[in-house]
């Protein structure tokens, strides 16, 4: 459904834009129908930039992104609007996603105004209620409120409900649980599982390894803008082959044991751009030598 063909993103830096900084380097992967793919990486690894490029909020410097076979960079005006009917995003910080001077349900009103101008008012109100109930919120409690009167979890779920109004095929979920506490986080994750059952593809961008493991079928580990390891989640987590992935997995705090300061830890591997090699069926590792 969605394919990234070795996309790169350069940012111009320096006083006169002379130098460039490569945020994303030759990244290729696919997201299929009804598939949850998690994109894991530390801060600054380019994972959010990839999400923004898929959503056309950032331009692609090299390579191309295709959706159902068509290059999305060619979309302008109405075509881009139709693309957003299929692909939507939910961002990390629910508080900044709402215009503070308006009521929170304005995010729904925008969708109606742009995509369903002819739907009667009552029918639309029912649709909103259904979408809000689908994200396990009580419509009476959340509709008609201002953003600061709602909690982060409620706002985040309203954003997901907003995406659902469009009957989308792909959701780019950029760190959607990082602002939530543990109990609401589980709610949102279960919601994602429901969406998957409905046939929705999800690109789950996160820095949290356990979350990635929990929701996704395939995992992509990103380091400094390039993929270091990619494959089915059970293979990447069960048999990590790249030193960086091993180090990353070792850094996850465990619930049942204290952090041992003196224990031997795998060293941070040196960084180099290496080609992806298929180590076992479907499991790709950068610079892997069998």
């Amino acid at each position, binding site marked *: 459904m969605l394919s990234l063909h070795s996309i790169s993103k350069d940012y111009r830096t320096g006083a006169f834009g002379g130098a460039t900084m490569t945020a994303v380097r030759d990244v290729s992967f696919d997201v299929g129908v009804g598939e949850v793919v998690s994109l894991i990486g530390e801060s600054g690894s380019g994972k959010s930039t990839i999400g923004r490029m898929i959503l056309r909020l950032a331009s692609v410097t090299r390579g191309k992104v295709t959706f159902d076979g068509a290059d999305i960079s060619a979309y302008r005006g109405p075509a881009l*609007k139709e693309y957003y009917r299929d692909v939507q995003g939910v961002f990390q910080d629910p508080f900044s996603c709402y215009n503070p*001077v*308006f009521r929170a349900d*304005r995010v729904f009103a*925008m969708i109606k*105004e742009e995509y369903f101008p002819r739907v009667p008012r009552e029918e639309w109100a029912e649709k909103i209620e259904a979408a809000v109930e689908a994200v396990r919120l009580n419509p009476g409690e959340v509709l008609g409120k201002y953003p*600061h009167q709602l909690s982060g979890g409620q706002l985040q779920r309203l954003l997901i409900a907003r995406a659902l109004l469009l009957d989308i095929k792909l959701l780019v979920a950029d760190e959607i649980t990082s602002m939530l506490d543990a109990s609401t986080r589980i709610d949102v994750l279960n919601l994602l599982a429901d969406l998957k059952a409905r046939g929705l593809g999800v690109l789950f961008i996160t820095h949290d390894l356990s979350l990635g493991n929990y929701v996704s079928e395939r995992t992509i580990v990103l380091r400094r803008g390039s993929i270091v390891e990619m494959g089915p989640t059970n293979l990447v987590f069960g048999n990590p082959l790249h030193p960086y992935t091993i180090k990353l997995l070792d850094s996850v705090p465990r619930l049942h044991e204290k952090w041992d300061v003196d224990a031997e830890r795998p060293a941070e591997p040196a960084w180099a751009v290496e080609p992806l090699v298929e180590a076992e069926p479907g499991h790709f590792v950068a610079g892997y030598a069998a």
Partner: protein
Amino acid sequence: MSQADQISLPAESGGAAPGQPAAPAPVAARRGGDTLYFALRNKKLVGGLIVVLALLVLGVVGPLVHTNSPTEYLGTPGQSPGGEWLMGTTMFGQDVLAQFLHGLRSTFLVGALGGGLAAIVGMAVGFVAGYRGGLVDEVLNMLTNILLVIPTLAVLIIIAAYLKVRGVMVEALFIGFTSWPWAARAVRSQTLTLASRDFVDLARLSGVPTWKIITRDIAPNMSSYLFMTFILLFGGAVLAAATLDFIGLGPTDGMSLGLMLNNAVRWSALQLGLWWWFVPPGLGITAVVGALYVMNVGLDEVFNPRLREM
């Protein structure tokens, strides 16, 4: 803190969205009430507003009630105030009161037109440059900077000198088209910070066209700022017009406060002791511009809780 501050605008719920349920709005009422509450208790704002409104009424209604022509020679020259001529007559027997009332009217006209025009151009340039970025921003910013460093008054003098017949409207147009650059820069910088907020991205994801994002998402977040920009431009336009009039480049077919001052100086009213000829226009200009600036300080306090005196 900053997010909560910006909510306090009464105009918000009106243009919100047609699809919105007519929700119970106790909160909105309270919040709009908040702004009004502080606005009505702000002495600077209320005082400035009273002065400006009083002068505005004088300028609009005055010429209708006191129908003497401001330019015709009506009475004995050089009459002091009192008696038949409430504010005296000029060296030529023109009615100073009529001149003052017509002058006030044209002062407000120049201010509203010139200031309004400058605000519109400045906001348009600032919003587009700040939102679109890239090459558009570079070009617009270059234009703004060029206009900013041009000595505006000198250009106005040259243009005004070339035109044989000048009305108040033409003067307002000149002033409007030359005083927008600082407003454009201010709006641009505000837009730059607002455009990087997530809610703008969300609006783009909702297929909202650019102009709608600017007018419905970005502008409402800085409406207090835009309002104050307009007030400052209004005051600036009044001052610029007075300057032009005073050096003799004012309207050729009308009356303005600056023109009164210009005539008074040309016919040595000061030396001859005709104080009623030049004191009213001077006071009038000072009162209008001063009251506007005091209002601006008051508005700043109303919109920015940190400046409120409590």
